[in-house]
C-alpha cells in the first residue's frame, strides 16, 4: 500500500520486530563460494556465479528499450538472532536472503524487477521487465566495467560469520544476570543479540562495478520492574556496523545500568502539564529531532516533487548561525555508515545546513540529475527487492558555543528530554513528533522531577528557527534506529549536542 506518502516513521527496536541467528562457524555459506570481509571483486563474482560478460549481457537487455541508465544490485545477507527470556537463552534463529535487483531509469521514471535466482536467463527476464519503463529501440555499445574502489569505514576484527552461537550465549546470560543483580525490583528481563553480514555486488551502465561487505550487530535489553502493585519497563540498545569484538563487559555494564536506572526513574515520573514550552534536548539520541523535523524534509525526492515544506528554501537562512546540520555516511562503524551507497556512489559527509543556511538536499541519482548537482551518496534501499530512494545515514548537528549547564540554567519552566522510542513527520505540513520515554521537568533552571510517556510535536521550519542554544557536547547515539519510508526500513544513527528549542508542544495533562 502506498499510503505512506507524507508520513515517515522512525522506530527504535525495543523488544519487538527482531530479525535474524549465526549458528556455527562458516554457517550459511550455502553452496556458494565462500566469501569473507576480505574478499576481492573476483571472489564476489564467483560468489554470485557471475562474470563481467554476464553483467554486460544483462545490462544490454535492460537498456534494449531505450533506458538512459541501468544498475544491477546483487545481495547475499545472512542474519542471526539469539534471545533470552525468563533467565534462559532459549530462542534463536537465522535468515538467508539472496537475489538481484535490476533497475532501469528513463529520465525520472523507474522500472524495477528482481530475481531470487541468479542465472543469465533469470536475470535477463527481470531486466526485460525493468526495461519496459522505456519504449523505444536503441543500440548501446558494450559497457566497459571498471572497479570503483571505495574507502572502508566499517573495519572489523572478527566477522559474525565466524562466531558460533555457543560463543554468543554467555553474553546474553551475563547481561541478564547483571540486570537482576543491580536491583531487587527487577521482575523480568529480555535480552536479544542480532547480527548480520551482507555482501553486495553492484554494477551499472556507466561502467562502475563495486562490491561491499556490510556487518551489523544489535544488542538489546528490556527490563520490567515491580514496586508494590506498580510495574514499569525500560529498554536499552546498542547497534553498530562492527564485528564480534564489540561485545565486552563494559558494554554489558552500560546497557544493564541504563535499563535499571531508566526503569527506576519511571516510578518517580509524572506527566508534565500540557502546552507549549521550552524544551532542552539531551546530547545523543535526541538527534531524532533532526531526523524528523528536518532530515526527511531535506530528502530530495520530496523537494523535486515540491511536496516538502523546505522545497522553496534552498540557500535561505533557516536557523541561527550556530546551527550546522550534517548527514554523514563516513563515521566509522556507525549504523547509518556506508562505504558506497546502493547506487554505486561514494558516500560522503553532506552539510544540509551550514551556519544556519540551507545548503544541500539529500540526493539519489534521479534527484541529483534533476537539480543538476553531484549526487550525495544518499541513494539507499532495504534490500535487492527495492529500488533506491534518498535516505538519511548518520544525521547530527555540529557542536555549538553553549555549555550544557548554561542551557539548562536558562530555562525557567520547561522540560529536559533524554530517551526516545519513535517519531514521525508529515513532509508537506512540516509537523513532526517524537515520543519521549523519559526526561525531567526544568524548574527555575534546575532539573527536578522525572517525566515519562509524552509525545512532543512541532513544525520543522519553526523548530529549526527556534533552536536558540547549542551545546559543545555533540554525541552520536548508538541505539537501534531504523528509519521507514515508502515501505523500506534502513538502519540510521543520529546525534545532537545539548540543544534548547524555544517552543514545542508537549503532550501533557490539563490542570
Amino acid at each position, binding site marked *: *500500500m*502506498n*499510503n505512506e506518502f*507524507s508520513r515517515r*516513521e522512525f522506530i527504535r527496536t525495543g523488544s519487538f520486530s527482531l530479525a535474524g541467528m549465526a*549458528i*556455527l562457524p562458516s554457517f550459511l555459506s*550455502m*553452496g556458494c563460494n565462500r566469501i569473507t570481509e576480505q574478499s576481492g571483486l573476483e571472489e564476489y563474482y564467483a560468489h554470485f556465479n557471475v562474470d563481467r560478460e554476464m553483467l554486460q549481457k544483462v545490462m544490454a537487455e535492460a537498456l534494449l528499450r531505450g533506458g538512459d541508465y541501468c544498475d544491477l544490485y546483487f545481495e547475499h545477507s545472512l542474519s542471526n538472532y*539469539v534471545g533470552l527470556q525468563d533467565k*534462559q537463552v*532459549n*530462542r*534463536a534463529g*537465522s535468515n*538467508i536472503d*539472496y537475489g538481484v535487483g535490476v533497475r532501469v531509469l528513463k529520465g*525520472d*521514471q523507474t*522500472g*524495477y524487477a*528482481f*530475481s*531470487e535466482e541468479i542465472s543469465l536467463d533469470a536475470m535477463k527476464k*527481470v531486466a526485460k521487465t525493468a526495461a519496459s*519503463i522505456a519504449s523505444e529501440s536503441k543500440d548501446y555499445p558494450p559497457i566497459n566495467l571498471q572497479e570503483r574502489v571505495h574507502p572502508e569505514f566499517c573495519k572489523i576484527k572478527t566477522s559474525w560469520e565466524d562466531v558460533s552461537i555457543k560463543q554468543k550465549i554467555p553474553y546474553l546470560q551475563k547481561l541478564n544476570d547483571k540486570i537482576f543483580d543491580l536491583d531487587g525490583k527487577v*521482575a*523480568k528481563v529480555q535480552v536479544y543479540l542480532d547480527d548480520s553480514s551482507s555482501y553486495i555486488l553492484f554494477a551499472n551502465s556507466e561502467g562502475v562495478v563495486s562490491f561491499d561487505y556490510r556487518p551489523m550487530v544489535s544488542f538489546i535489553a*528490556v527490563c*520490567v520492574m*515491580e514496586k508494590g502493585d506498580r510495574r*514499569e*519497563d525500560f529498554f536499552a540498545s546498542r547497534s553498530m556496523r562492527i564485528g564480534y569484538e564489540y561485545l565486552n563487559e563494559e558494554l554489558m555494564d552500560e546497557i544493564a545500568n541504563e535499563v535499571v536506572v531508566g526503569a527506576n526513574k519511571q516510578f518517580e515520573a509524572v*506527566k508534565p502539564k*500540557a*502546552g*507549549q514550552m521550552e524544551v532542552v534536548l539531551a546530547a545523543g539520541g535526541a538527534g531524532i529531532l533532526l531526523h524528523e523535523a528536518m532530515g526527511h524534509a531535506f530528502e530530495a525526492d520530496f523537494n523535486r516533487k*515540491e*511536496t*516538502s*515544506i523546505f*522545497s522553496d528554501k534552498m540557500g535561505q537562512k533557516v536557523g541561527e548561525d550556530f546551527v550546522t546540520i550534517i548527514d554523514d555516511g563516513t563515521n566509522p562503524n556507525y549504523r547509518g555508515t556506508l562505504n558506497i551507497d546502493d547506487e554505486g556512489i561514494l558516500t560522503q559527509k553532506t552539510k544540509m545546513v551550514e551556519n544556519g543556511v540551507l545548503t544541500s538536499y539529500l540526493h539519489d541519482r534521479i534527484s541529483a540529475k534533476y537539480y543538476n548537482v553531484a549526487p550525495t551518496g544518499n541513494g539507499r534501499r532495504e534490500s535487492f*527487492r527495492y*529500488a533506491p530512494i534518498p535516505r538519511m545515514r548518520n544525521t547530527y548537528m555540529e557542536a555549538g558555543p553553549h555549555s550544557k549547564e548554561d542551557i539548562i540554567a536558562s530555562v525557567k519552566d520547561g522540560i529536559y528530554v533524554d530517551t526516545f522510542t519513535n*517519531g*514521525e513527520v*508529515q*513532509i508537506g*505540513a*512540516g*509537523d*513532526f513528533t517524537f515520543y519521549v520515554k523519559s526526561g525531567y521537568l526544568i524548574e527555575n533552571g534546575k532539573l527536578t522531577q522525572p517525566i515519562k*510517556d*509524552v*509525545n512532543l*510535536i*512541532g513544525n520543522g521550519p519553526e523548530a529549526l528557527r527556534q533552536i536558540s542554544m547549542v551545546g559543545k557536547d555533540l554525541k552520536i547515539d548508538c541505539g537501534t534506529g531504523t528509519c521507514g519510508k515508502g515501505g523500506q526500513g534502513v538502519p540510521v544513527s543520529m546525534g545532537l549536542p545539548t540543544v534548547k528549542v524555544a517552543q514545542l508542544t508537549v*503532550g*501533557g*495533562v490539563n490542570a
Partner: protein
Amino acid sequence: MKDNKKVELAQWASKYATENGAKEVSVSVYDSKESEVEVRKQKIEKIQESIQSGLSLKLYVNGKYSTHSTNRLDRNDLEKFIKEAILGTNYLAKDQYRSLPDRHLCYDGTEKDLKLFDSNYDSIDPRQKIDLAMQVEAETTGMDERIISVTGSYSDGSYRSYLVLSNGVEGFKESTSYSIDASASINGGDSRPSDYYYNATRFWDQLSGEGVGKYAVERALRKIGAKTIQSGKMEMLIENRSVGRVFNSLLQPMFGYNLQQKRSFLEGKIGKKIASDLLSITDNPFIESGRNSRLYDGDGLASRKMTVIENGILQTYYIDDYYGKKLDMEPTTGSSSNLIFELGDKDLSALTKDMNEGILVTGFNGGNSNSATGDFSVGVEGFYVKKGEILHPVSGMNITGNHKEIWNNLIAIGNDPLTDRSWQTPSMLFEGVDFSGL
C-alpha cells in the same frame, strides 16, 4: 491453485528435519507475485514487478527451539541449512513449553472457500493496471490550482502458503489483493498539506478507482489553514479510518507475550470492565473476502470466532500456543483476524453535530503507548468543532492519557465500519480527553 512441488518441498523439509535430529518441526513454504505502477503528471513514475518464494522452519530439538527462513530453495542448500540449524539449536537452553500444538486444537484440513482468491489474477492485462493508475490521477486534473502533486498508484499481489507440521497437520492458503491509491499534496501557502485515500479488494472485478484521486485531493484541501488551539479537556471524535491507531494500544496488552512478560495493564481483567458499555468486539476469521480471513493461524491452530469485548467487559486474550503453555491457559490465537465492532446508529457527520466542543481527529502523528501501564501520548490532526459545527482545521496538537480510563469515556459509536479492512472500525466519540496545544 496448489503448486504440488511446493507442497512436496514442505513435506520433504519436515521429514528431513525430523530424520536429522528435530523432535518436531513446523514448515511453511510460501510464494507470491506482486506488481505496482505509480503515475504522476500522467507519466509512469515507477513500475515494479516481483516473484518471490521462501521457506521457514520452527525447530523443536531436544526440548530446545529455534526459527529459520531462507529464500534459497535448492534441496542441497536446504539440507545443509536444516542440519546446521538443528546443530546450533542444541546449544540453547531447554524450554519445557516449546512443542507443537495439541493435534485436537489444530486445523483438521477441512476446506472452506472464504473467497479470498481471484483466479483471474494472472490474466489481467498490465495495460489495464497502468490505465487505472492513470485514471486516478487524471480525475484530479484541473480540480484546483493549489494542487502540487497527485500520485496515482495501482498495486496487486497473489500469495500462497503451505503449512506442514510434523504431527500431520497440513494447510494451504491462497489469496489475492488489488488496490488503488492516491496521494495528494497541496500548496497551502506556508504549509503543503497532503492526504491519501485508497480502495482495496480481493477481486479484480470489484476494484474501482473512481473518486479515489478526487477524495484524496479534497481531504488535503480541507487541511489548509490548520491552527493549533488552546490546551484543554474536550470531546474527541475519531474518524473510522484512524480509530485503529489508538485501538491497537488497547489490543497489544491482550497478547500472551505481553501478559507473560508482565508488560500488560490488562492482566487479570478477563470478566472485568475495561471500556464503556458501548464497546463490543468480535474476532471473526470466517468473513467472506475478509482482509484477514483464515482457517488456521501461524501455529496451525484452527480458527474460531470469538467475542473479545462485550459491553465493555473483556472476554478473552490473544494467546498463542507457546504463551498458552507458559501461562497455563488454553490457547486462542496469536494474532487478530477480522475485528467486527458493534455499531451505533449515526454517521460521522451526525456524530459531529452532537459535539459540544472538541476535535474531530482525522489523522494521528507519531506517539506511543506503554503496554505495561496504559499511558499514552499521540499527535493528532483534524478539525475544531464547536456546537456541532466544524470551524477550522487543527494541527500540532497531542492527546495524552491512559488506556485504563479513556475507553470508559467512549460515549458514541458510528454506523460507518471500514468493511474493506481487517479491523472494521467505526468512528468513535470520546469525552474528557486531554488535548495539548498552545
